[in-house]
């Protein structure tokens, strides 16, 4: 199915949670409300005409100007072959969104990485802790306004 069909199909079933959608261009996606994320995700995976079973990547993009963090979920279907993406916008000060690890277990580690590097809080995540940085590392490195720390546990770096 082409991206526009997917978007039409999506709006037909989940009109209230789909905010906007872009069909053409290099990155066809649909913007979804944070509350409706879990429902849309389950819909994408279980719907026989979509069957997006392989979650490829969850990327968190920090927009300090618009004071929000964008989460992009890229999915592809190994049986039907078409790809799609859904995006969620969360407030930058207190980023909190429902975890999709129940739908795609692959999301577990991606969400832990987003939590670790970007500071996005995922609710009902089986084991949300830092994955790449040390356990007690202050701050979230990938944020645009991240200040590199000077000294950590007695080890000093010059910025």
């Amino acid at each position: 199915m082409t991206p526009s069909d997917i978007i039409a199909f999506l709006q037909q079933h989940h009109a209230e949670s789909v905010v906007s959608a872009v069909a053409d261009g290099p990155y066809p996606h649909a913007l979804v409300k944070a509350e409706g994320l879990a429902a849309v995700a389950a819909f994408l995976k279980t719907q026989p005409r979509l069957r997006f079973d392989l979650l490829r990547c969850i990327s968190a993009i920090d927009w300090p100007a618009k004071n929000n963090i964008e989460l992009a979920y890229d999915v592809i279907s190994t049986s039907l072959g078409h790809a799609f993406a859904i995006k969620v916008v969360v407030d930058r000060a207190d980023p909190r969104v429902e975890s999709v690890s129940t739908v795609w277990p692959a999301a577990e580690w991606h969400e832990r990485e987003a939590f670790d590097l970007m500071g996005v809080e995922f609710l009902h995540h089986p084991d949300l802790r830092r994955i790449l940085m040390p356990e007690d590392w202050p701050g979230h490195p990938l944020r645009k306004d991240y200040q590199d720390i000077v000294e950590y546990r007695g080890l000093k770096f010059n910025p």
Partner: protein
Amino acid sequence: MNQTANIKPQTPLGQAMFVCERPKVEYRGLSLKIVQLATKWGPIGIPLLLRFAWGIFFAALVFVIAFVWVVGRFINPLLPWFVRDVVVVVGLLAFVSIVAIIGIWGERKVSGRIQSRLGPMRTGAWHGWAQSLADGLKFVQKEDLIPQDADKPLFRLAPYVALVPAFCAYLAIPFGVGWVFHDSDVGLLFVLAMLAIEVLGVIMGGWASNSKWSLYGAMREGCQLVSYEIPMGLSLVAAVAWLGSLSLVELGRAQDGGWWSWLLFQNPFLFAAFFTYYIASLASCKRSPFDLPEGESELVAGFHTEYSGFRFVMFFFAEYMGMFAVSAVATVIFLGGWNSPVPGLASPLWFVIKSTFLVWVQMWVRWTLPRIRIDQVMHACVKYLLPFTLLLFVGSSLWQLYDNPDHRLFEGFAAVVRFGLGCLGLLLLGLYFAGAAYGFYHRNQLVGQMVRKHLPGA
């Protein structure tokens, strides 16, 4: 004093990180007195010592002679048997260390050639023959680490408990007709007993180095060796029952009628018993598919992870001595030890040739086969090897029961079978040499263009 100075570096999980500064050694008690004495008298003492070096040397010599004379009061040191024993033990020690040294060098050359590379070429002119000496020297000057809360006395004792029995096994192995240290009539059992003690050294080493990984190595070692002693013993019993004596010299002397009188070809059960014995001996000296105790890829280095310096060399020597001892027993019992294929030309050289061939096969197997898992090792022993060797023992004794003059028909059949097995043995040997010749003839295609271009010696 900024506040961060006193944070002790911790690992992420909060345990105190082990900061390894240079340990400041403080002397106590006796060692303190020695150090003080040395510093005080050193500048005066050492030149004095050098001045009277020759005097001290001769004084020591006189002391030794006096001591021997006093001991002689108990036993006369010039007694023939005493001198003979000392000479033979020293000779054995020399032979065994040469075997180990050549073994280490040989293993590296063999593994090189199997992996289409050259192996050591530089140390000591022709094909790096002095490589193992260089290794020994390197290991001697390595720092001798003992883990902090290891069981120190046991840690230090373990290599010796592994090395000494490996050497004692050679006391009962006959190299030629008269060439044996003590021809006791339980020679074979003595060798098996010595190999059994070696297990304790390895377990002690694994337990004393107080690390989980070496404990795993020690446990695996214990299970594997103790359980593989049974099939090893049983296949030997099948052979011994055929000749009726446990003394290795007896066994060797009974096989001196050319290659068709070798025990290997006497009956099909003994032919199979040789191979089961060989497999069990691979397991008993931790070689090739059974090298679990020091399974590098999962146990880092198994029981001798924490050993460094000369202690590690002890374990290494014990392994190579064990390899040769086990092959020596196989040659004496199954391949007619010092007897040559053609009746008459018996000499210790044949013994050495056959044993080195079996050691070469061990190396060859090591560099081709992957490692077996511990539960497969146990299953193989209990489910396959043990019943099979029991069957061989029963079959061989039944065969012996009927293979005598009053069963005319069966005896003829047995002679035919003996001849057939001899031909089979010859065929196997021929196959091996044909394969080797083919490999040598086509070595350029097999090895590949890279090696020919870069490594002229391949």
